Structures are given as structure tokens and as C-alpha cells.
């Protein structure tokens, strides 16, 4: 795959949306526009949103759309250069020194270099898409390191010199917004806030993602989930949970439970917090009845 290919795929936001739908991801207009702009302007794409709205899925879909491999860097507090950039394989280096004996040997050869996600992408920018997942979990030092990487797309290895990307790689960052990201990072990126989809889109997503769920079931699930999300829950259900709920209810229904009952019994895959469950339990029957229409 080449850079020209990326441009032909991203002809217009509509073309991007169509391709995304082809890789089983339904993007709304503004997300498609943001992806289009990120690809065409050569900027990283920063996706923010509540957990479970499909940020990581969007990144996977973009990788599929471009026909590239997805390299994922999961962030956590304390992540550092050795986990994100590169590391030397010291054991092999020591063995090689032993083995070489009197001969001359370059222990900083490619053989001894373990490429971590950022370096992997740098080496083959045309074949890979970098996903920096949950950047808000890392600390400020790592954000600064990433900032440097995203502005120049180069990594300096003291023993080897600077490695530069041959082309601008495509980078997607996601954040749950548990903390405010550095202004400099937001500034460098094309930004998109992913919200929960409306009932109609959610029903379409459920149809696309779930195994074999009837249209009516998908509609009912989408409507019920919308109502449940409006309640003050500790953890509002995400899209993945809604899909699972539709699946689980369908399975139960085939096993012989009548409709409202099947939804109620499968609630455990939708709401995974004991307090939320007790909160929603008295209302659940009514919500499901209404959603079923």
C-alpha cells in the first residue's frame, strides 16, 4: 500500500464513511470528516469520548480501510521510552560478544534491536497505522515524549543515530478524558469527540455487529439503552454492551424465554455494576416494555 492509495481511498468524507461501513464500522458524518481530514492533512487524529463508544474500533476500521496493519500502543501510568520506542536485546548481545571471541562485532546491529510500537511504525509508515490507546492514562512525561515523536516522526537512538520516517505515518490517539491532555497535543491533532450514537444508528450498529438479531430486537435494544443511559449510572452502558445484550437476549429467547423476560434476564451483560443494577431493576420492566413498543 502506498501514500497515493491513502489519498484515493480518502477522496471525500462520504467515500471514507462508505469504506468504513465496508469494514463494519458505521461512522457519522463528523467522524468521517475528521478521519478524512486527518488522512489528507497528514495530522494525527485524536478521538475522545466516554468508555465504550467505539474509539478503538474506529482506529481498527481505519487500518482496515487503508489495508494496513494496526500497531497498538496501550498506555498506562509509568509507560516509558523502553516500552514505547525501542529496547536492546541484552542477552543476545552478551551471547554474541562471547561467541565472537577475538573477532570484531557490532553489538548495535539490527539483530539486537527490539522495536516497540513507535519504532515499528516509523520503519514502515506506509504499511502500518499507529494507535496510541488511552493516552490519558500515561503521565505528563510520556505525553511530552509522544509530542516530540508526533511533530518530527523521528527517534534518536544514541548508539545508532536518528531514524526518520520515510513518509508521514497515520496516527490515531484515543482518550477517555480522565484527565485533560496537554494543550500542545490537542493543537497538533485533528480532534473529534465521539458521543453515544442516536437510537437509529445504534440499531444499525447492533444489526451489523451482532450475530443474528432480528431488526425489531435491535430497535428495542437501542431504544432501551438510550433510556438507560439517561439515568445517573456509575457506568453507562457502551455500544459493545448493547450489542452483547441484543445477542444474549436473542439466545435466551431461542432457549424459550418470552421477550420482555429474555431482556430482563440478560441485563447482566449490559450493566456491570451492582449498585447500578439495583438502581435500574425496579424500572427495567417498564423501560423494556416501552422499548418493545
Amino acid at each position, binding site marked *: 500500500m502506498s501514500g497515493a492509495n491513502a489519498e484515493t481511498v480518502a477522496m471525500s*468524507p462520504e467515500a471514507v464513511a462508505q469504506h468504513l461501513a465496508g469494514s463494519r464500522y458505521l461512522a457519522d458524518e*463528523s467522524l468521517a*470528516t475528521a478521519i478524512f481530514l486527518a488522512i489528507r492533512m497528514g495530522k494525527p487524529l485524536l478521538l475522545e469520548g466516554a468508555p465504550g463508544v467505539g474509539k478503538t474500533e474506529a482506529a481498527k476500521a481505519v487500518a482496515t480501510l487503508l489495508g494496513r496493519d494496526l500497531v497498538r500502543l496501550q498506555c*498506562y501510568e*509509568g509507560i516509558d521510552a523502553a516500552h514505547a520506542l525501542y529496547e536492546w536485546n541484552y542477552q543476545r548481545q552478551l551471547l554474541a560478544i562471547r561467541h565472537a571471541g577475538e573477532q570484531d562485532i557490532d553489538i548495535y546491529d539490527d539483530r539486537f534491536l527490539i522495536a516497540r510500537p513507535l519504532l515499528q511504525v516509523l520503519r514502515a509508515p506506509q504499511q502500518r497505522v499507529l494507535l496510541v490507546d488511552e493516552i490519558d492514562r500515561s503521565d505528563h512525561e510520556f505525553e511530552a515524549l509522544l509530542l516530540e515523536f508526533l511533530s518530527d516522526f523521528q527517534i534518536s537512538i544514541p548508539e545508532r543515530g536518528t531514524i526518520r520516517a520515510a513518509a508521514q505515518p497515520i496516527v490515531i490517539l484515543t482518550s477517555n478524558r480522565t484527565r485533560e491532555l496537554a494543550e500542545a497535543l*490537542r*493543537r*497538533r491533532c*485533528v480532534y473529534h469527540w465521539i458521543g453515544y450514537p442516536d437510537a437509529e444508528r445504534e440499531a444499525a450498529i447492533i444489526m451489523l455487529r451482532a450475530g443474528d438479531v432480528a431488526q425489531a430486537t435491535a430497535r428495542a435494544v437501542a431504544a432501551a439503552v438510550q433510556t438507560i443511559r439517561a439515568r445517573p449510572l456509575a457506568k453507562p452502558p457502551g455500544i459493545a454492551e448493547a450489542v452483547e445484550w441484543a445477542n444474549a437476549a436473542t439466545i435466551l429467547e431461542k432457549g424459550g424465554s418470552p421477550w420482555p423476560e429474555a431482556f430482563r434476564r440478560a441485563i447482566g451483560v449490559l450493566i456491570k455494576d451492582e*449498585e447500578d443494577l439495583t438502581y435500574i431493576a425496579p424500572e427495567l420492566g417498564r423501560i423494556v416494555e416501552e422499548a418493545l413498543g
Partner: protein
Amino acid sequence: MGDLNDPFSPFTGRRCPEGEDEGQRHRGQKVAPPLTCLPASSPRERGEESLPRAAQPFLHFGRLLRRYGFAVAPEQVSGFMQAVTLLGPRSMGDIRQAALATLAPPPDRREEFEAHFQSHFYGSTPAMVEGDPDEETRVKDDGGADDDRMEVEQSQEGGELSSAREQLSLREFERDEDRLTAFRCGLSSALPSRRSFRTVRTHSRGKLDLRRSLREIVSADGDVPSPLLRRRQTVARKLLLLIDVSGSMKLHTADYLKLAHAAVQGTDRAEIFTFGTRLTRITSALRLRDRDQALARAAAQVDDWDGGTRMGPTLLAFLSVPRFSSFARGAAVVILSDALERGDHAELEMAMRRLSARAFRLSLATPLAGDPRFRPETAALRAILPDLDDLVDGSSLAGLGDFILSLARPAPHAATIWKRVS
């Protein structure tokens, strides 16, 4: 700005215990921005002349946003124009999408942004969006965004507050002063710590540092002089102070804020919130070194002085903002309140349970416990006692300071202590 040159300025005449020139210098810095802004705007003015006329609205939109306090960098405006070009633009919708993607308004100010967009590009009447009046607990974050609010420090409100609260005799005041200094200096080393994922070089007790050892071996021609070690770093946990500013705590709030200021000055891992009927984050106000200024600034930010308490709902509001509740994760949380919750305490109970599940240690310091006859016997206190790690006396600054400094040391659970007492 005239104040600085004015020989009769209130500054020169004011009594300032912690170094007068310090405050002045700080003020000088804060005043500077309008001056430095001038040269920066002139090249922009020049660049504008060479731009096609059609591009003007986009440039002006960026400027409009900046005027309303959105952080918009020049490169974002050029990115915006680039995006508009890339998209066609075929409709106003395209321009709106481009603006959203490149100018990146924070999600909580999205509506305000849309209103500005409407008024700028559609020419409708400037629609000012006020904070929507919802019945939920209002959450306020100073965010450190508007530093130009420094003027607030001289406002009447701040002065009144501090003079009305100056109820300590002079001798006690001095002793408190020493205590606060000792607290500030001791805090960063006294906070509980956790093991970080990062490693540091060390000379004993650690794992082999292969990278450095290998370099050493190569430079020593194959000899192994002595193994070089690394071990996991320990970092201080965060300290989260939640201060009750309701009417029933009136006598103690001033002291608590002083303590909070000392805590913020002593460590960068402290986060301070006040709560009454609302929740306000005052950490960045307290970052100012001068205490009087910092407290006045914090006072201006808090809207619910001496009102009622809605402890349960405000704590739940705290937990429902992901950014705030992540402050509590693994932190030492100290709530300074009398926990006199009126009415139903179910929400308080739930909030405390969630807080204690997140926190490393959850403590409640209540001024009521200064009374030797105090027993945790109100319904609310009895309900939350099992979730508390400590229930201590918060009536004196000295006791409270010592308690916070002892957070790293293990102590018996609050419920066991108070069972023994009663």
C-alpha cells in the same frame, strides 16, 4: 498596571508577612501579557493583508474564539483554513465540521462554540450561552485557564472574608504560622508512597541493569567490574483534600484553607476541592505563593460560602466527573467536614463507599471530634463509619497537620477505634 508606578499604591502600604517584593514581582509578571501581546499581533496583521479576502472570516473566527477564552493556536487556524479547502467547501456544514475537527473545542464548551459559530458565520444575533441552570450539582473547575483573573485578589470580598475570620490571638497565630511552615516542609516526604513502574539507578537491592552493565562490560573490554543495579522507583501518592465550606463549618474554613495552601505549596501532588452545595476545584488558585492572594483568589472562586451542605450529592458529582474521580484513585483522601447531612444519607453512604473503593486511604476529620464526649452516633456517621479508614479530630490546625503527616503510617481502622471508645 498604573498601580505599580503609583507611589501611593495599596501595595506599598500593605502589610505582607511573607516578603512584600515577592508579591509585587508576581503581580508584575501577571500584568505583563498585554505588553508582550503587541509585537505578536503585528505580523499577524501583516499576514492578513496578503491573504485573499475570502479567507478573512476564518481568521476572524479564530480571533473571536480567542477573545472568549478558547485556546486557539495560530497553526490551528491555518489548519482550519486548510481543512476547509480540502473539504470543498460544499456547504456550511463542511465549514462547521472543519472547525470542530481542527479548532478542537473542549467537549464541555461545545454548545458555546456552536453559538459562536452560528453568530459568526450565519450572522445571527450574538447568542451568549450562559451555564444552563440544571438541578444537578454544579461543578466548577478553575482549570488554571484564566490567569488574568489576578485582579480578583484585591476585591472587597476577599478582604472581608479574611478580616471577618481573623479570630486568633496574635500568639496563637504565630504558633500556627510555625506549624504551617513545618507542615509544608514535611509534607512531601511524609506522604504515603507506592511503587512506580519506572526504575531508578541504585547501588543496592535491585535488579541487574543490563543496558548500563553491557556498556560497562564493553568499555572494560569484557570484564565485569561490578554489577550495576536498578530498582523500581517509589513515588508519593496524591493527597486529595475535600473541604466543607458550609455554614456549620464557618469557624474552621479559614484554617482549613490555610492548611490547604500549605499542602499545595509543600507538594505538587495535592488536589484541593471545596464543597457545600456545589463543588469547586481551587488547587490552581492555591498555587500562588503569597498566601493572602491565594486565599482571596480561592475565595472568589467558591460560590457557596456558608450555605447549606449537600455532602452526598456533591461527592457523587465529584465522582461522576472522570477527571476529578481519577484524582481520588490510589490517593490519600481527607474530607474535612462535620458530616452533618440533613435528611436522607443514602447518597452520602453510596458516595463514601465509592470513594473508599478508589482511595488508598479515606479519612474524615471532623471538628466535632475535638469534644471528648463525641461519639459517631448520628445516623449518617454510623452509616459511613465502616467505609472510613480514619475518623479524627479536625478542630485544631496542629492536630490536623500532624494527622496528615502521619498518613503513611498504618493505623487501626476507624470502626475498631470508635467501637473501643464507645
